């Protein structure tokens, strides 16, 4: 394997994406050719990247690619170390399957939208994600990050005739550049603290340089917070998530799968690189901050998802929830590291990374399934679905598997990573040496349990309303399965949810070997003992997903056997349902709103729902016999109402005041420069900076 993978392969991967991007543009006039070029190149490039990433993971042999220039700032180095390899594998895996799905899916955009444009940005988007997780110095990383943000922006506004997409894109664009500002700040401060631009040299520099040389606790704290905010915006943590529920649904579904499944994970990747490799001695307060944000994100994410009846927005909110679960692992790991418990920290980090992989798989599956439904029904409103299982059985089964996996039901993959996260949190209660830590971990356990329960409820609602009962709109009755390539990609992902769960021991050990390359865990006692098909933690906890799967299968077989034994060979008679004399119509079915209403009412303290009722009467003068009674139920994102709107108003007021200094006089502008210069001298003289 080592001999097979080299830096040339990585360059070939990038060349394939470049070919796909440029080829799509060149063949722009023919949608058929440009679509085929863009999708084929993306599929081949992603498949090659998957081989490279998994190859490095298995062989433990990093590869490096250097693009030299006479100017030091324009010399870019890329490399695939253990952590990069893990993320390259995830990105490439989902991109390969999403590209396969795209073969059948993208046709429905023609002739309204050009496929050449889609192919161009799609290839660049995947390539930029791969470059982000392989960049080995700050400048290369920042350029790749910006390209990733811009290409994904153009994919969000791909269907540019929809005003909602343009609005979503604008919000995404703004938030990504706020994020970029924080990331640049973190990187500049890291450079100031270490004096180097290469990620690999930053950790040794931080360890060897004395605090007076620049790496003071205040500066380190500022770096950690800036990085957390910057990458947290990309990851979609609450309250920095407002772009996510709009942007993910706006993009084409295979792009949504990539954005939700892997793009937001690039934020997680950089958090892991900075918090565990570059700065492996985090303060306790920072770990607690991450844990608190994780609890809030997971609970509010799933609550907002429950109140949604737009299928893609619902999935987008679940991404926020799952980022919260990933951060529960990362936050716990940071706390354990600050307490000097690296073995527990390693388990917690593995839980977070494992959930990163799992979420990528089941979220991609759910988005692709949702994309199939939307492309057939031409609406994202779940209230207009119903009974789709009869028309799209493969999609229904795929969605069901994804729903079970995201609800952490055994024997699927979501269960394993949430189990590992629970183990870490329980260990936190046992080993936390203060009341604050015990409370924090108890809250985290409660939050995760609540999140899991609510996620299951949400997907019972989603699956029931979309696929069961009767069609609630004529479009449903015309729906049919997507082309074979799209069905195949969904089935592959569905199979992966089970395969990953059964091979969880292997994956956990692979992740253990990845984390062992981090400075913080290099001398750590192994947190796992080696058992095929069984994860045995040093804390004494054991789980075997293969055994659970076997038991479940046996239980189902046993139940069937008992039913057949007790029921014998009864004759089944099919007849009309007793309906009290009233014809059954889709209006009698429970709606998405109806299902979620009771839970939202219980959580009204947090969600602050508002309700508008309207009645139309048969005769407006008599107002006795109502013709139509409608109820509109809204939940408002608290971050929008309590943070961004006040901020927006304050900014508008401040802009009006600041606008007065723009008086059109050159003299005044020179005066401002003069005063700024003086102010800088004052600041320097007083030793503030």
């Amino acid at each position: 394997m080592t001999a097979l993978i080299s830096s040339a392969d990585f360059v070939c991967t990038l060349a394939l994406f470049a070919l796909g991007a440029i080829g799509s543009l060149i063949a722009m006039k023919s949608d058929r050719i440009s679509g085929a070029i863009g999708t084929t190149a993306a599929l081949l490039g992603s498949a090659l990247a998957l081989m490279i990433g998994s190859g490095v993971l298995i062989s433990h042999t990093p590869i490096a690619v250097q693009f030299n220039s006479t100017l030091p700032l324009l010399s870019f180095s890329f490399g695939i170390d253990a952590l990069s390899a893990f993320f390259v594998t995830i990105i490439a895996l989902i991109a390969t399957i999403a590209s396969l799905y795209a073969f059948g899916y993208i046709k429905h955009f023609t002739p309204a939208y050009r496929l050449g444009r889609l192919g161009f940005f799609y290839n660049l988007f995947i390539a930029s994600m791969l470059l982000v997780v392989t960049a080995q110095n700050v400048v290369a990383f920042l350029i790749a990050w910006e390209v990733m943000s811009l290409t994904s922006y153009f994919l969000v506004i791909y269907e540019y005739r929809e005003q909602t997409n343009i609005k979503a894109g604008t919000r995404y664009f703004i938030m990504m550049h706020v994020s970029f500002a924080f990331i640049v700040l973190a990187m500049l401060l890291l450079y100031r603290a270490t004096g180097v631009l290469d990620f690999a040299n930053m950790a040794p520099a931080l360890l060897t340089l004395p605090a007076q040389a620049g790496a003071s606790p205040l500066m380190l704290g500022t770096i950690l917070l800036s990085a957390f905010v910057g990458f947290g915006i990309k990851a979609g943590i609450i309250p920095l998530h407002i772009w996510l529920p709009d942007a993910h649904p706006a993009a084409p579904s295979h792009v949504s799968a990539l954005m939700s499944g892997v793009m937001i994970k690039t934020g997680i990747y950089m958090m892991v690189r900075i918090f565990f490799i570059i700065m492996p001695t985090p303060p306790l307060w920072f770990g607690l901050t991450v844990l608190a944000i994780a609890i809030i994100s997971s609970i509010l994410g799933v609550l907002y998802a429950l109140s949604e009846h737009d299928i893609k927005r619902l999935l987008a909110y679940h991404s926020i929830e799952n980022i919260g679960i990933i951060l529960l692992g990362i936050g716990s790991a940071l706390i354990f590291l600050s307490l000097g418990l690296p073995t527990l920290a390693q388990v917690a980090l593995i839980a977070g990374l494992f959930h990163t992989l799992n979420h990528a798989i089941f979220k991609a599956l759910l988005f692709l399934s949702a994309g199939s439904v939307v492309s057939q029904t031409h609406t994202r409103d779940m209230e207009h679905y119903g009974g789709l299982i009869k028309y799209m059985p493969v999609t229904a089964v795929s969605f069901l598997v994804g729903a079970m996996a995201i609800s952490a039901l055994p024997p699927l993959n979501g269960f394993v990573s949430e189990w590992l996260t629970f183990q870490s949190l329980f260990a936190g209660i046992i080993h936390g040496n203060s009341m604050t830590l015990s409370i924090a971990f108890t809250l985290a356990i409660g939050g995760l349990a609540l999140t899991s329960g609510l996620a299951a409820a949400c997907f019972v609602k989603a699956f029931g309303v979309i696929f069961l009962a009767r069609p609630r709109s004529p479009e449903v009755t015309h729906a049919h399965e997507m082309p074979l390539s799209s069905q195949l990609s969904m089935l592959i992902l569905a199979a992966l949810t089970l395969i990953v769960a059964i091979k969880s021991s292997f994956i956990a050990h692979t992740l253990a070997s990845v984390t062992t390359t981090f400075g913080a865990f290099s001398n750590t006692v192994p947190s796992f003992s080696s058992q095929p098909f069984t994860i045995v933690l040093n804390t004494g906890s054991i789980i075997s997903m293969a055994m659970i799967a076997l038991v479940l299968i046996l239980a189902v077989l046993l139940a069937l056997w008992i039913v057949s034994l007790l029921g014998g060979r009864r004759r089944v008679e099919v007849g009309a349902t007793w309906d009290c004399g009233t014809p059954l119509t889709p209006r009698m079915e429970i709606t998405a709103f109806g299902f979620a209403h009771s839970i939202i009412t219980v959580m009204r303290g947090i969600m602050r729902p508002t309700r508008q009722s309207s009645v139309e009467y048969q005769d407006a003068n008599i107002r006795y016999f109502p013709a139509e009674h409608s109820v509109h139920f809204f939940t408002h994102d608290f971050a929008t109402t309590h943070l961004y709107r006040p901020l927006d108003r304050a900014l508008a007021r401040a802009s009006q005041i600041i606008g007065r200094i723009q008086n059109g006089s050159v003299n005044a502008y020179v005066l401002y420069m003069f005063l700024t210069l003086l102010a800088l001298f004052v600041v320097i003289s007083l030793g503030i900076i």
Partner: protein
Amino acid sequence: MTELPIILAGIAFMTIVLIQIARKSMLVVELFVVQSAAVIALLAWSSRDHVTLTLVATILAIAAVKLFVAPFFLKRLIATHASRFSSNTYLSGPNTLIVLALIIALSSSYLFKPLAVIAPGAQTLLFLSIASLFCALFIVINRQGALSQMIGILSMENSIVMMALAAGLEQSPALQLGITFDLLLWVCVAYIFLSLLYRQFGSLDVTQLRRLKD
């Protein structure tokens, strides 16, 4: 002899102060010529120990641009359009002098102490250069005439040269030639631009240039 650089810098500085209060357009141009001559003399003095042909050529080129080309264009502008330097200032005469005094005091204050490390052996020259720089900047801020502002920018460039000499940051002759070429281009462009502005607005007072016309 060691006092010569300070005397030359003092002359340049005084011309900048006088430009602030001068009312006649030709006088301002003449003051700029004196100022440039002082700066060029300072440049020549600082290069006295390592005279080369290239260096002499560079100094001559700078002299040509600052003593002849720039004044030529400025005088031509005045003569062609019969315009006068707008003598109007945003601040009144006494207030202008008070601000100048404050700037000079500020330039020598502890605020600029951190800069002393870049020229430990020539602090007086350095602070004179800083004072000149800020006074030149103040010309741009305070004068309403576009031509005055042009002189202010040219004076700032002279002050920066003085500062670089004080700090021992002399650059290679090739780079200095490049800078001089830039300056030449700038003067030409500014001349054309101001001519067009005068033709369009009939004035070079920036307070009159508030609204663009077709």
